[in-house]
């Protein structure tokens, strides 16, 4: 899809008629139907992917078919309305969060300008409160006394095909980043609302391909990219060769090895494409430096979990591979690579869904002896926690000047910041390996802005939307680029590494994106190394 020129979009976000820039809509929002046109929606899931997922035990993905959001007729099942309302009732009974969030909002508007989609598009329905009202209006109509009696006057409306289309539009213009929930006086979390909307839509066969294809790949081949075992191994081995060529040290690796101490799982994107590849080279180098006894797995070769963006059943099914593989291989604990939504699943869902992991041991770093009490039950440690601990104990030798080509800043990924509280570990690491500066305070830590393309929205056909929703993040980077000559945006998220790269290329050329572990490996002094002058660290072309 064509993306507007930078000058054009730069003007449009400031002056375009939108609620964010001052234009006040004259029509009641309920009377404004959504219009789908190329570029404002992600492509629907391919029929065969939906059918495949539906065929898997424990999953329910009915109504696989070819359809287009632009068509008037979405080929919904005959009784789609009953399915949706029944699905909503069921979810109200299963999730207290949904009930509370439907009932407690006072529409104070504190969330409105906290959303990157609202700031970038100015579309009033992208205010978090409105996104929830899209569902809340139907909830009022069918589940509350006031709504049943007073109808539209009490903000209720009937479930219609037009409402369903609106749900599809706006539940896929939310990245479940939870920034609004930080500012809400009742902690109302739009991510919960979006997750419920997406779950409901899947009940009638409405989903997008950029999520369901990776999810089905992950189920079958073990990873989103669909890499089969031999290809996955090849990819990692290429990286091993690269590290050897650059440093003179060949990392020792293994796959599906029983009896290893640690199972290492990271998003497959890290072994698939730049700039994630450099982060993966960072892991290899780091683990070699400390002689960690670990194995990769081709069966559980995905850290990420697109089930989180689909429904809780798919999330559970995909996540279950981690423990299943850890058990089969007989490892003691698991280390997880840099990824945002992967860590939301691990920190907040995994143990509940697929625990207890009583076949694993409480994680203890064999290098420092540190017991990771905070992961005592899940038995899974974040690479930044693991690395920070190594640094604290003086187990890594750094030459910071090896990163002298880098002036970095740090992007907190939404999930590690707001669904985990992992804020200072990566900063502690950066302090030791690179010269870096913070972005402005309203855009970092718990107030961090999403890359604009999370939750499976990093697909090319909605590039303009992505560049708009990524504007607040890009703008904060631009500030430090201009003020401090920042040329590297570091992060601990695989989706970020892909999406922020597009975002920087568009808004702030000259800023590259990297994982924190890449910077660690750049600065790492290895025993027996034979390293040339790596002017670009692991990115140096030999």
């Amino acid at each position, binding site marked *: 899809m064509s993306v507007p020129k930078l000058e054009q979009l730069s003007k449009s976000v400031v002056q375009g008629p939108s*609620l964010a820039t*001052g234009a006040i809509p004259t029509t009641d929002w309920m009377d404004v139907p959504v219009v789908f046109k190329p570029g404002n929606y992600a492509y629907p899931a391919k029929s065969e992917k939906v059918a495949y997922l539906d065929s898997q035990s*424990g999953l329910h993905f009915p109504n696989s078919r070819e359809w287009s959001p632009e068509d008037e007729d979405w080929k919904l099942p005959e009784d789609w309305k009953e399915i949706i309302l029944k699905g909503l009732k069921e979810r109200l*009974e*299963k999730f*207290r969060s*949904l*009930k*509370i969030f439907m*009932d*407690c*909002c006072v*529409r104070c*508007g*504190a969330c*409105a*300008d*906290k959303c990157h989609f609202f*700031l970038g598009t100015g579309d009033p329905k992208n205010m978090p409160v*409105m996104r929830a009202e899209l569902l809340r209006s139907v909830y009022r109509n069918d589940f509350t*006394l006031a709504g049943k009696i007073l109808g539209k006057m*009490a*903000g209720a409306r009937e479930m219609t095909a037009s409402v369903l289309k609106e749900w599809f539009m706006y539940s896929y213009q939310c990245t479940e980043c*939870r920034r609004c*929930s*930080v500012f809400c*006086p*009742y*902690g109302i*979390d739009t991510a919960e609302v979006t997750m419920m909307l997406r779950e409901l839509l899947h009940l009638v066969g409405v989903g997008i391909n950029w999520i369901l294809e990776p999810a089905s790949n992950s*189920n*079958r*081949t073990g990873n989103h990219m669909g890499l*089969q*075992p*031999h290809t996955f*191994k090849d990819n990692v081995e290429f990286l091993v060769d690269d590290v050897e060529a650059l440093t003179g040290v060949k990392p020792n690796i293994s796959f599906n090895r029983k009896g290893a101490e640690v199972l290492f799982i990271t998003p497959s994107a890290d072994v698939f494409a730049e700039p994630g590849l450099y982060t993966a080279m960072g892991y290899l180098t780091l683990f070699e430096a400390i002689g960690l006894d670990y194995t990769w797995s*081709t069966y559980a070769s995905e850290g990420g979990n697109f089930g989180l963006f689909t429904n809780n059943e798919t999330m559970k099914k*995909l996540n*279950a*591979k981690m423990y*299943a593989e850890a058990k089969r291989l007989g490892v003691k604990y698991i280390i997880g690579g840099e990824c945002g939504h992967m860590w939301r699943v*691990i920190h907040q869902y995994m*143990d*509940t869904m697929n625990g207890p992991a009583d076949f694993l041991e409480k994680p203890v770093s064999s290098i420092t002896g540190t017991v990771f*009490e*905070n992961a*005592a*039950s899940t038995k*899974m440690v974040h690479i930044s926690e693991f690395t*920070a601990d190594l640094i604290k104990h003086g187990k890594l030798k750094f030459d910071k000047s090896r990163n002298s080509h880098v002036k970095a800043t740090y992007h907190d990924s939404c999930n590690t910041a707001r*669904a*985990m*509280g992992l*804020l*200072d*570990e990566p900063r502690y690491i950066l302090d030791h390996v690179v010269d870096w500066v913070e972005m*402005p305070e309203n855009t970092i830590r*718990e107030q961090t802005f999403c890359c604009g393309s999370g939750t499976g929205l990093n697909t090319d056909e909605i590039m303009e939307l992505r560049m708009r929703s990524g504007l607040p993040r890009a703008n*904060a980077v631009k500030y430090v680029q201009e003020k401090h000559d920042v040329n590297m945006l570091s992060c601990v998220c695989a989706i970020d590494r892909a999406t922020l790269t597009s975002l920087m290329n568009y808004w702030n050329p000259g800023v590259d994106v990297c994982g924190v572990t890449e910077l660690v490996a750049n600065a790492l002094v290895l025993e027996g190394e034979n390293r040339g002058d790596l002017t670009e660290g692991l990115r140096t072309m030999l």
Partner: protein
Amino acid sequence: MKYAFSFLAVIALVLIAGLGSQIPGMPYLFGVALPYLAIMIFLGGCVYRVVQWGKSPVPFPIQTTCGQGKSLDFIKHNKLEAPNTTAEVVARMFLEVVTFRSLFRNTKSEIHDGPQVTYESSKWLWIFALIFHYSFLVIVVRHMRLFLDPVPVWISWLELGDGLFQVGAPTWYMTDIGLLAGCALLFSRRLITRHVRFISLMNDYFPLVLIFAIALTGILMRYFLRTDIDIVNIKQLAVGLVTFSPTIGAEIGAIFYIHLFLVCALLAYFPFSKLMHFAGVFMSPTRNMKNDSRAKRHINPWNPRIIPHSYAGYEDEFREFMVDAGIPVEKELAPKKDEE
């Protein structure tokens, strides 16, 4: 027009009470029957709503962390923003409920030429909300003097503090002004701030107008229409209501019945409205859960039995490739049959 309906509704309520209470025999309806009914709806409704919420489980720990979680010893843990113990959660909730901390964080974002996105602290909503809620609270507590005999000494202290500036006679209470101002400010904000106006429903305007009218009638009674009402009779009725022996002595002015009827309307409306946020805030999972979900397992009562696509199935599909690539397998390849 949503706000206009709210005014109409409140005016209708005022007329009903003002005229209705003047019909002989009706004071008992407005002074005794409706207050009992309203308080029953209020209590029953609130309990019902909270029980309804409580019936749905919290399947997953979905705490929103607004600061550094507890991890390594040398990483400073933010106990309030990412609580790890019950005490820390209580502290977080206490400050949220008492000081509206999340609103205190509020910022205003704007997009300027460049484009340049800017953020500035915006505390107006926080200040308005504090004025409104605390004035309301103090007024409710002050009204306890009507129901209690003898009047506890701490209520007198509260009144003394509330009337500290000793303006006018009888002394004006700060909270009376505060509640009127709070309603007016929150209402104006809904009209003036463009995005808040866009999202506001009648359900948002109506309670503000209603509470404004309650405050106004109360103020009229206390400061301006004192001759129309008989405070001794009102106290007798109030004490009678709480001791279940209500009597209405001599005639009480219509303004009192209007005030009381509006309060009844608020009580009866309360459980079916967004005003239930007063209870919901305590039950919000993003705020009241500990951030210890990797250290302690949270139980989901409806955890479905879903197993992953099995390793065996995976190896069956890819065994040949795996063996070729030297990846260990559980089952070796079947020996190739001799070519015939």
